């Protein structure tokens, strides 16, 4: 008898648990839907407003009354295509060179044990504590002397983006640390040089982190405002998209250019986002792996 009672009790309790789990799951679904809406709304708005024809000013409603591609057409008559090209070239070059530099740095710090290794890492940690903004002033002046500012800003931008990129070695070093050292040693025993070990054994295994590095390096120039602002100061053709579109939202321009900003924003975001979503897997791996190891 007593056994029966307790078993029915357990059943009851089980049902209760199930009901409360259902309830909390429903709450979570509601929350997730709410979050999705909040997170997507700005992008939906920007997309919708880029098609608005009736006015170019900022308005309190979202859905256009008259739809059209006017804003996109108007973009062509501005310097926007030039900015776009500037940013694209800078992004491509940065993706190539930064990846090479970061991989050199992180591979070395992960695999080699030399006397200056620890001091070097400590030095870079300390250097990273200085606000990067500080060095911009002098870099700007030096580049100005070299004639790499204003209309010729792209090579200057690339130079600055890649030059110090070795300091961002943390994530990929964390990845290299996880590749077993016995692989290197086996190849070394077979007579491979260090260079051959890197090219033939490590790099093929490091594909995820190579893609991660390329992706982040490619995306960074699209969002850089500070240095591009310094370096293109006073010209329009030397700007990148961030500086150009930022200036459209100035007090004296915003009424004329607000919807054009939306259209430009869509054109910038689209390719970057598509690329990102395709390579999302690698990005997630890099972020989750890198953050924990510091």
């Amino acid at each position: 008898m007593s056994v029966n009672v307790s078993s029915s009790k357990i059943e009851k309790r089980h049902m209760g648990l199930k009901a409360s789990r259902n309830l909390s799951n429903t709450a979570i679904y509601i929350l997730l839907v709410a979050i999705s809406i909040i997170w997507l709304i700005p992008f939906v708005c920007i997309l919708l407003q880029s098609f608005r024809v009736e006015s170019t000013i900022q308005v309190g409603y979202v859905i256009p009354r008259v739809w059209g591609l006017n804003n996109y057409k108007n973009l062509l008559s501005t310097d926007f295509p030039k900015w776009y090209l500037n940013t694209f070239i800078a992004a491509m070059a940065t993706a190539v060179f930064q990846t090479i530099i970061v991989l050199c740095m992180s591979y070395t710090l992960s695999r080699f044990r030399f006397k200056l290794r620890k001091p070097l890492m400590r030095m870079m940690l300390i250097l990273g504590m200085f606000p990067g903004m500080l060095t911009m002033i002098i870099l700007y002046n030096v580049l100005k002397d070299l004639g790499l500012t204003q209309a010729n800003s792209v090579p200057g931008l690339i130079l600055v983006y890649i030059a110090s990129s070795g300091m961002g070695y943390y994530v990929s070093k964390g990845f290299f640390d996880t590749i077993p050292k016995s692989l290197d040693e086996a190849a070394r025993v077979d007579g491979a040089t260090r260079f051959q070990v890197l090219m033939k054994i490590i790099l093929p295994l490091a594909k995820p982190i190579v893609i991660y590095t390329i992706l982040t390096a490619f995306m960074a120039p699209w969002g850089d405002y500070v240095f591009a602002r310094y370096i293109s100061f006073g010209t329009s053709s030397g700007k990148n998209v961030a500086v150009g579109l930022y200036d459209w939202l100035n007090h004296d321009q915003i009424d004329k250019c607000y919807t054009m900003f939306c259209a430009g924003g869509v054109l910038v975001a689209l390719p970057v986002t598509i690329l990102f979503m395709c390579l999302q897997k690698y990005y997630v791996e890099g972020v989750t792996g890198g953050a924990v190891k510091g």
Partner: protein
Amino acid sequence: MIKFNTLDYLKLSKWDRFCLKIAVFLNLIPARIFALVKKLLILIKNLLLAIYNEAADILVTFINGDWKTRLSYVVMGFGSIARGQILRGALFLLFEIVFILYMILAGGHWLSLITTLGKKGPSTTYDPILDVYTPVYNDNSFKILLYSVLTVFFIIAFIFTWRVNIKQNKIAQKILASGKKLKSSKDDLRSMVDDQFHKTLLALPLTGIIIFTVLPIFFMILVAFTNYDGSHNGFTNSLFTWVGLDNFNTMLSWTANTQGGVQSYSATFGEVLTWTLIWAFFATFTNYFLGMFVAMAINKKGINLKKLWRTILVLTIAIPQFISLLYVGKMFAKNGIINGFLMNMGWIETALPFWEKANWARVTVILINIWIGIPYLMLITTGILMNIPQDLYESARIDGANAWQQYRKITLPYMLFVTGPYLLTSFTGNMNNFNVIFLLTGGAPTNPAASSAAGSVGYTDLLVTWLFKITTGAEAAYNIASVIGILVFVAVAVISLVVYNLLPSIKNEEDFQ
């Protein structure tokens, strides 16, 4: 101080325990400072010892050396060339020639001007025929300082190479004396991709870092001790020169507070620093806890479409921040979509002052930062949450722990343990979070009391955005900007050092493993 044993300690209330912990921490500070000073002294001692040893070795090598070695003291690489290591020797020799040429042609000139940063400022000459005054530019303080720093770097590099050259001679002599053969130039080239491969790999990245980071930082530290600003730009209007600690005085002395309704630099600095710390605290921890919460919600058993929820959040990382931040910033404007929506619904009569009032703006910035930050934190915490051993929860459930207790006693300690270092870097990163503040508010609303030289600093300005405003502002006070930069460095370094030593994952590495 009273000593507590375990029993006494357990008798204390929670609050008392907390106070006790703080008291113990404060009590340890003098000991910590003492330890630090001791460490520094030992470091200096070791450094002096190392220099002494090097000097002694240089002398002994000279005395014991043959004529090839001795001649290498003057003509770098001679010994290597004479012993058949042509490639090495040639590189040493080339470096010496370049160095000497540079010093004669340029370096010496720049170094001789370093004490005053130039003697002759710009002047004008009168042209009687055309009846115009044309400006004549003479010394350029900026270049003098820059090239002097470069020259000092070059000299250090030369001394280092000279020392290596002597060491090479010593080693070569030893090898030859023991009857072995020296490495040929071919061997040297091969070792560049083999046992010396790390040097080859590091050459390019390190050169970049030294030229584009180390050199500028040295330069800007020196600028903090000059009067380099818009009206002393060192070339076209007036030279700049050394002013000692004046800039630090302007920034840190509280005596000159609020003169004639205008806020002094020091008062502005105090305000901006306070807000920077408050911002960094909230930006870090709101994101951390809410991001963890969202990750747990998505991870929960029985929730479907996990991938979809994650993808929606990750999408916001993909879109360049300047677009999303600028656009969201405008959404909250007086005539923006948010206010328009609220007014259309009839919930408010007049537009809410999201960006117009100091505290409104500060709260709005923190809220929007949550929108920016949660996707990253969701990604980071998801992986770690899945690593928590499930049997911990299993046994907690059997003991009757509810969801909150499980979170409080299992999830949170585990997360804090693993992500401690990340939280620290994220805190210091937020102190320097230029993008979010600048693109959202540009520092607005402006602080009307601040002086114009402070570059129209606002209530949401962080130290870094303030620094940027000062350098791009009308008065372009680079010297003050450098001081701010140095102070940011000091703040970040102190916080990192103190917190790093307190982190549980550093103190007891073995827990949770």
